[in-house]
């Protein structure tokens, strides 16, 4: 029987939104091998979150609490996690491929001298119960299946928002086990001086249901402002490809794609975006993609659900009109 671990990520005492899908994935992996799902929850005062983890699918919650774990730091988190993994020997350990998970996972894998695959888009168990981890490479131009045949645990970080969010089963219970935390002075040399919360719309991009994004084809800062109106009318947020960021029409925090954010909205409207692979890697998980471009041969149309060949300066106002939003 395989024990599958998921490392819960918290930020400011809240479970990280982009990592909750991991529970659903861990659950289905556990089902296919008659295994169990264990959550590892680290923090200062995080016990109340255990019930949520149970509701999302954890059978057991290992609770590691210590004031030194209040804010994420690589070394104390590594010490606690490697100790637990070493003692209990799970088959699989999953973390979100976030700024926290991608910092912590390689440090833990390095200390345990085991294998780790970054930024996975798919995880399945093969006939032998080996975890097949699919990761993108070369800017998502190539997919690679990676296995860890002999070392344990098999570790992976998983790209946020790739898997569907599991339904929360209120009242589902899990065994909560408090574990002891022993840290050495050498684990505590790094200090978090400050967390700067950037409460901007950009941080909502990754969780938005509707995104209206513009590319070079928007032509000017003034035209780019049209996107704001359309986003407002649709209850969505604005994003961009790299050229508008380089032109200074919008802040870099709104950039979607290989060097920006990966998004997975229900509706993605691509305006004046040609569809270079550097951008499309960031939008592939969108449910419905609408492309508006005056170049009928633009590659973005290969990715789109609906396409309109036309000038964004004509089509967006027509859309606003149709939506009952005056210009």
């Amino acid at each position: 029987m395989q024990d599958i671990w998921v490392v819960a990520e918290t930020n400011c005492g809240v479970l990280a939104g982009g990592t909750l899908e991991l529970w659903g994935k861990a659950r289905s992996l556990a089902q296919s091998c008659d295994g169990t799902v264990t959550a590892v929850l680290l923090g200062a005062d995080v016990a109340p979150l255990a019930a949520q983890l149970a509701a999302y699918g954890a059978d057991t919650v290992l609770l590691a609490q210590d004031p030194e774990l209040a804010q994420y730091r690589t070394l104390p988190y590594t010490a606690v996690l490697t100790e637990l993994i070493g003692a209990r020997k799970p088959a699989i350990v999953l973390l979100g491929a976030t700024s926290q998970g991608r910092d912590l996972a390689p440090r833990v894998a390095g200390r345990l001298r085991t294998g780790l695959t970054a930024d996975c888009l798919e995880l399945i168990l093969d006939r032998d119960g080996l975890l097949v981890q699919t990761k993108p490479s070369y800017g998502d131009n190539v997919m690679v299946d990676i296995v860890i045949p002999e070392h344990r645990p098999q570790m992976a970080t998983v790209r946020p928002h790739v898997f569907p969010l599991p339904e929360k089963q209120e009242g589902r219970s899990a065994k909560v086990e408090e574990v002891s935390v022993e840290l050495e002075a050498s684990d505590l040399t790094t200090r978090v001086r400050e967390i700067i919360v950037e409460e901007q719309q950009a941080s909502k991009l990754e969780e938005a249901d509707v995104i209206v994004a513009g590319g070079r084809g928007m032509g000017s800062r003034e035209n780019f402002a049209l996107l704001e109106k359309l986003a407002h009318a649709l209850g969505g947020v604005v994003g961009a490809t790299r050229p508008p960021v380089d032109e200074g029409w919008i802040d870099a925090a709104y950039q979607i794609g290989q060097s920006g954010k990966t998004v997975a909205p229900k509706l993605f409207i691509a305006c004046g975006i040609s569809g270079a692979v550097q951008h499309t890697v960031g939008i592939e998980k969108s449910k419905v993609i609408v492309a508006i471009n005056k170049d009928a041969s633009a590659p973005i149309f290969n990715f789109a659900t609906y396409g309109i060949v036309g000038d964004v300066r004509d089509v967006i106002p027509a859309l606003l009109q149709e939506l009952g939003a005056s210009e």
Partner: protein
Amino acid sequence: MHIVVCIKQVPATLDVRVDPVTHNLIREGTESTINSFDAHALEEALRLCERFGGKVSVISMGPPQVKDALRKALAMGADEAYLLCDRALGGADTLATAYTLAKGIKRLLPPYDLILCGRHAVDADTGQVGPMLAEELGLPQVTMVKKLECDGKSAVAWRESAEGTAVWEVPLPAVITVGSEINTPRYPKPIGIMRAAKKPLTVWTAQDLDVDEDKIGLKGSPTRVARLFSPERVSHVEMLSGDPEVAAATLVRKLKGNKLLQVQGGC
């Protein structure tokens, strides 16, 4: 200060495909370059050395042609370059790579004060070698750093976090991996390129590094590539024709049909 910068040579274009028959990678062009994030790491190292004095060493693991990337780093202003090059090192995953780099870095003199890396390589996109290297060397790490202040003894690093930015204070030596926000890398000048030809570029084999054979190359790599394939991209686009007004009306109808519209009224 002695700052060590880890560099990976990557293909100049990421426009690669998988041959559907042989399952080998088909690369468009054979040109290579320094991984862009590593160039930012080198730039940061050069700026720190300009302020505090000292030297910048660049180190890489790979086949002989990686010398081109190291020469370019020397032309940008690095003082010394080291290439860890041996058939026995081939097939290394991130763990074996970090182990081997650590072995090389431990040999550098004088002992390092700071190790800088790019936040990830643009080809494999793992971002794992930096933290694994820090572990091998027993050093603290800060990854995905977008701003760095350093007084020679400790560093303050602004790193990407879910909330926005986390500001970490870390004693040196440490391993710090940087993103593109941190600076704009300089271009090598003709005088730099001329000087680079005379700067030391040392090649070390596995034997020079005193490595444990079980920890290098394919043998030292826990991960195995089982399969390479192209992502599926089947176009199912439905083109909406007509004047902008007609197309817009059709689109709104389609989106309403898909329950994707919750119109929130005008501005």
